């Protein structure tokens, strides 16, 4: 059960990171009329950060090897 404490801490930290990535002035930095491959920069940033958070949480919650 000790491992679950570490997992919980990591997930909470990730939640903070996510909040910062999405809801802080950092987001506004990317709110510019720039487009990569025809897609606005802000989309790239938001979806990229989103994918990062999902991947990180999947990694944190990977099942223990025996």
């Amino acid at each position: 059960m000790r491992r679950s404490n570490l997992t919980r801490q990591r997930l909470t930290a990730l939640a903070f990171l996510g909040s910062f990535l999405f809801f802080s002035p950092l987001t506004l930095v990317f709110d510019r009329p720039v487009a990569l491959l025809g897609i606005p920069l802000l989309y790239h940033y938001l979806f990229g950060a989103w994918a990062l958070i999902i991947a990180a949480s999947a990694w944190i919650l990977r099942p223990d090897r025996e």
Partner: protein
Amino acid sequence: MSLGGPLIAGIAFAYLGLLFALAHWADRRADQGRSVIARPTVYALSLAVYCTAWTFYGSVGRAASGGLGFLAIYLGPTLVVLLWGSLLGKMVRVSKAERITSLADFIASRYGKSHLLGGLVTVIAVIGVVPYIALQLKAISRSFTILQEYPAVVMPDPAATQPIWHDTAFVVALLLALFTILFGTRHLDASERHEGLVAAIAFESIVKLLAFLAVGLFVTLGLHGWGGGSELALAWVSRAGEDAAQALIQPHLGGFGDWFAISFLAALAVMFLPRQFQVAVVEISDERHIQRAIWLFPLYLFLINLFVLPIAMAGVISFEAGGVDADTFVLTVPMALGQPWLALFVFIGGLSAATGMVIVETISLSTMVSNDLLLPALLRRWGGLPPEADMGRLLLRIRRGAILAILLLGYLYYRLAGDAYALVSIGLISFAAVAQFAPPIIAALYWRGGTREGALAGLAAGFAVWLYTLLIPSFAKSGWLPLDFLDQGPFGIAALKPQALLGLEGLNEITHALIWSLTANIGAFLLVSARRMPDTEELAQASAYVDVFKHQRRPHQALWRGSAEIAELMALAERFLDKERARTAFTRFANSRGVAKAADLPADAHTVHFAETLLSGAIGGASARVMVASVTKEETLGLDEVLDILDEASQIRAYSRELERKSQELEAATAELRAANLRLQELDRLKDDFMSSVTHELRTPLASIRAFSEILHDDPDLDVEERQRFLGILVSETERLSRLVNQVLDLAKIESGHADWQTEDVDLAEVIEQAAISVGQLLQDGALRLEMILAKGGGALVRADRDRLMQVMVNLLSNAAKFSPPGTGFIQLHLEGADAGWRVSVTDNGPGIPEAELERGFEKFHQASAGGNKPLGTGLGLPICKQIIEYFDGRIWAEVAPGGGARLVFELPLGQRAPGGKAESK
């Protein structure tokens, strides 16, 4: 080809038929005990019922006008699920323990099992969610109408509405009512989850995701000139400069506050929408499934949003600005590109999104309505105990009626509202309504305070503000109410303008409403809760909720006093649940308490609580309490008693922790003691060995002394020569004896550490020479030759005790002398420098020491024989030398000398040079 109405309708109904079959199959498997849905992936997919037709169609609509706000609805939940390990885990644990079947039950059970509270929650849920259901039905109807016109893309005429029996939405509503009744009300007991239902929902989540991805991929490939949408690429190039396209590629976040507020709102909604609570908490089969959902659910949300922008782009360039509603792009783009089957797939996807939401919301709302609105009203009318014998059947009928009523109500709202603002914008407005449940629920899990009245006040205040700032203004914006109270405030009071309360302007209406409603909610909750202490029931439930992860023993058992009869409790249970089920449950409970038959159960607090919990699953906590109270006689505990009991419980926990710690310390101490004991025993044994050796050695000379003394005494006529000889023996034996005793004492003193050591700088060479002189006589007697090779240079200084060193040298030399053959004996004494000190070796040419005995010579009482039987020494000489040498950090050992004799060697580390290099004198 054209897609006629009948074809589309046929496919839609076939799809619904597929869902029926799937649910039926899953239920059958569950009954056999081979559940299909007990997998974490299915759980995560069922959570995706969060994505309804509103988001299936609406996300693209918002993206097309350049708003990114639609993403906020998904980002909030992505972050909040990261905290679900503890938050949702706690909710699930509590719900399983208390047999909670709905949001209303969760809140009401916590705050004193109040009927009023449950009723209020139900009312808020119904008012907040039924319009949302209406929106889904509208989406079904609209998408059907649009698809019907294929290959033309025409927006449905809002003025012309179909008669009810022609309206697909109506038929769908009826079918959904049937589905929900069939698969959601099979039994009353809530420990039965609705496996078939969940299977259907999970399947629908897959279908809607696939449909959206299909369109997305098609469009994306098309925009780049591949696949069937190659005209898209051309169109994009040609129209990229227009306004609509420009808006698309320069998205804005909107106000930053709105961006955050909507995310926060969505984070609350993903937990507290009735349908979310139903799938996440009530239907969950295994707590551990939450783990996978934490990343799988956000992944789903990510995927279903990935192609929103490409589809919006495709829509913008495919149609003249304003010609086609952006909300319909998901459907109309495939139509415009000549893909009827893709369009059909999208229609089915939208149908899945809508029907999934409707089914689950209806189940949860109907449970709340039957348990927390209708049943309490009925109970009041019957004044307590219901007259009917089989309440179970009646309750099921009530629940089914509720399902039908809710669906019809939703349809009615859709027909009445049409295209009004009050329907179109209901999505976030619903979210704001259910956000009012957040304060009492979060407080329920983490705060021991909070009273029934406090929760009531908070909910009522929040709901009232929500009504005033969101719902009523939406009616006004739909033209159902005069608009001026919106623009100028009621009675012209500007500070009370519904969407700019107290002058808070410039905010999105949702953000504005959220701020004020949550403030009113939390404020009223705290203020009113502070008016009195929580009572017995509230305290007990507070403990049950907040400490759910710690409690082994429920506090209820300690906090209930009264009397009851088992037969009555069982009869009560059988009234509401299946007779079989009730009996089985009681019997299993009896077995767990070590009693064979249910009838033999003691009617104590534990049993009563069990009965109450069992009933809660069927009729809700508040009603269960009332029912059980009617068949038992409870003594009310005073508040002080309750607090004492609860305090006691926490004190006991603290004590037991102390005890554990103490016992661990004790164990460590015992282990140490045992080790020490073993050591002592070992030493004791060594001491005994020593004692027996010594006494043996002492006895031998004593015996001969006695023998010879007796001879001398008994025989006065012994001649002088004999007498002299015997006396000589006596003398030497006594000498030997006293030598032995001295050595024993010496050794004992050294070993016990009581010897007097006078450590000083000693000149080894000088000591050696002195020793040689003192054994001179011995040497002469045996005609032995002594050769001394001493290191050159002055002063072989060591730190030692001079006398002791003499003792060692004399011992070594006399040993050598003893064992050297007389006449030819040759002793060599060598003093030389060694690694970090001085080495002295004494070599003789006697018989030597066999290899095997090189070490044994240093053991106490070991005697080497010199070719004769008579021992030549005491056996303690070498041990004493060893002790002395080792005391001064030296080494001593025996070797076989070249030539066969024995060589004794010792080394001593360098001593300090006194200033001037002279050895200090003693």
